[in-house]
C-alpha cells in the first residue's frame, strides 16, 4: 500500500509530464491535465467565493444587524447587487446587472487612476529630474523625452517633433529587448525547481516512460503519414 505522500508525488509528477506533452503536440494526456486543472481551479474558486461572501459580507451584515451598526447593515447592498448580476440573462431586467457592474468598474478605475498617476506619472517624472551635469543624465533625458514623444498621437504635433518620435520608438525597442532578457533568469529558476522535484525517486521513473510514449507516438504518426 502506498502512503498518501507517495501517491501525491506520483499523481503530481504524472500531471507535470502530461502538461509538458503540449510542447510535443496537443494530445489526450494534456487534455486530461488541462480539464483536471480547470475543474480543480473552478471548484477552488467556488469554495473561496462562498467563504468570501460569508466572511466579507454576511457576517458583517449579521453583526451589524445585531448591534445596529449602519455600515455593517449596509453590506446587504453588495449582496443584493451580486444577485442583480444574474438578471443579465433576462431581456427585461438586464439594466439591473449594469448597476452592479458600474460599482465594480468605478472602484477599479478610480483606484487605478489614484495609483497610476501617483506612482507612474509623478513618481517617474520625479525620477527623471537629475541635474544635467553628466553625459549619462543628458542622454537619459533625451531618451525619455523621445520615448514620450513616440506616444503623441496627434499627427500635426508628432510631425512638429521631427525625428524624435522615431528615435523614441528605437528607445522603446531597446527597453523591451532588455526587459525580455531580464525575465529569463527568474523563469529558468522555476523550471529548474520543477525539474529538481521530478528528478527524485519515485517520481523520476515516470520520465523515461513519458519519453517512450512520445517517441512511440512520433513513429506511429510517421508511418501513418507515409502510408496515406
Amino acid at each position, binding site marked *: 500500500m502506498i502512503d498518501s505522500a507517495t501517491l501525491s508525488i506520483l499523481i503530481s509528477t504524472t500531471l507535470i509530464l502530461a502538461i509538458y506533452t503540449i*510542447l510535443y503536440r496537443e494530445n489526450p494526456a494534456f487534455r486530461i491535465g488541462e480539464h483536471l486543472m480547470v475543474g480543480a481551479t473552478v471548484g477552488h474558486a467556488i469554495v473561496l467565493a462562498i467563504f468570501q461572501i460569508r466572511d466579507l459580507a454576511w457576517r458583517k451584515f449579521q453583526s451589524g444587524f445585531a448591534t445596529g451598526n449602519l455600515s455593517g447593515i449596509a453590506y446587504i447592498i453588495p449582496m443584493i447587487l451580486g444577485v442583480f448580476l444574474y438578471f443579465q440573462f433576462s431581456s427585461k431586467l438586464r439594466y439591473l446587472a449594469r448597476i452592479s457592474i458600474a460599482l465594480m468598474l468605478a472602484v477599479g478605475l478610480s483606484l487605478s487612476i489614484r495609483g497610476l498617476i501617483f506612482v507612474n506619472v509623478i513618481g517617474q517624472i520625479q525620477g527623471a529630474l537629475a541635474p544635467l551635469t553628466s553625459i549619462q543624465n543628458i542622454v537619459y533625458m533625451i531618451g525619455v523625452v523621445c520615448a514620450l514623444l513616440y506616444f503623441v498621437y496627434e499627427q500635426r504635433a508628432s510631425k512638429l517633433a521631427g525625428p524624435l518620435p522615431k528615435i523614441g520608438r528605437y528607445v522603446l525597442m531597446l527597453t523591451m529587448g532588455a526587459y525580455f532578457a531580464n525575465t529569463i533568469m527568474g523563469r*529558468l529558476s522555476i523550471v*529548474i525547481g520543477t525539474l529538481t522535484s521530478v528528478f527524485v525517486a519515485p517520481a523520476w521513473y515516470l520520465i523515461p516512460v513519458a519519453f517512450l510514449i512520445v517517441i512511440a507516438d512520433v513513429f506511429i504518426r510517421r508511418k501513418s503519414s507515409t502510408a496515406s
Partner: protein
Amino acid sequence: MVAREILSRNYKQVIYLGLFLSLAIPLFNPIGLPVPVQKTTLGVYNKIESLKSGDVAVIGSNIGAAIYAEVYPQYIAILEHLLRKPGVKILLVGHGTEAPIWAERALKELNAYNRKSYGTDFVHLGYIAGEEAAIASLCRDVHSLLKVDYSGKPLSDLPMMKDIGSAKDFAIVIDFTASADSQYWLNQAYASYGTPVGFGLTAIKVPDAYAYYMAGQIFGIIESLSGAAQYENLIHKPGMAVTGMDAQSLAHLLYIALIIMCNVIYVTQRRTKK
C-alpha cells in the same frame, strides 16, 4: 535526409528537447562552468583565508523562506569554509524568528557537530529580539545580553565564550540578510569598534551595499546565487549554487545560439532569394 525533414517540420520540438537537456544535464552532473569571480566575493574569501587560529567569526544568520533560494547556498558555502579553518571559532546569531531553524539546518547539513566540538569551536546563540538596539548591546557585552545559547545551555559552561566579551573580540562579522539589518552591524560593530563587516545578500539589496564596499567600509559582498556559486568554486566544493548556475548558463547560451542561428538562416535565405 530524415533529420533535415524533422528539423524543418518540428524545429520547435527539437529546440524544446535541447533546452530540456541543457537544464537536466547539469542537475545530474554538475559541469562547473566558469563563473567569473567578482572582487566583492573574493574580498570575503580572502578575509576568511586570513583568519588565524583563535579568531572569532560572527555569522548573522537572518535567512527566511523568502530569501532561502538566494542566500542559503551562500550561507552553506561560508560556513563550510570557516569549518575548514583550524582553530577559527564561529559564533552564530540572528534576529529573525526563523533564523535559528535555518542555522541548525545548515549545521546539520555540514555535519558540524561531528567535525568540530560544540562550545569550543562554535556556538549558536539563536535569535535576539530588539533590532539595532539588540545588536548594539551584543557588541557592547555579549554576556550581559545573553545568558544561555540556542538550546538553553548557560554561556558560562561554553569554553569558547570565556574569551569573548565585546565586539572588540570579533575578528569579522558576516551578515546574511535581505533586510535593513546589515546596516545595524555596520553602525554598531564597524563604526563603534572597528570590527570588519561583510555581507551575503539577495540581488536587490546589492546596489545599496555596493556603495559601502566602494567606500571601503565593508570587506566584501556575496551577491545572490551567482555569488554563492563563485564561493563554492573558490572553496572547491560545487553544490546547489554551481548546479543552478550551470543550468542557467547553458540555457542562456542556448538562447543566444538560437538567436544567432535564426539570423544566419534568415540572412542566407534572403541572399539566395536575391
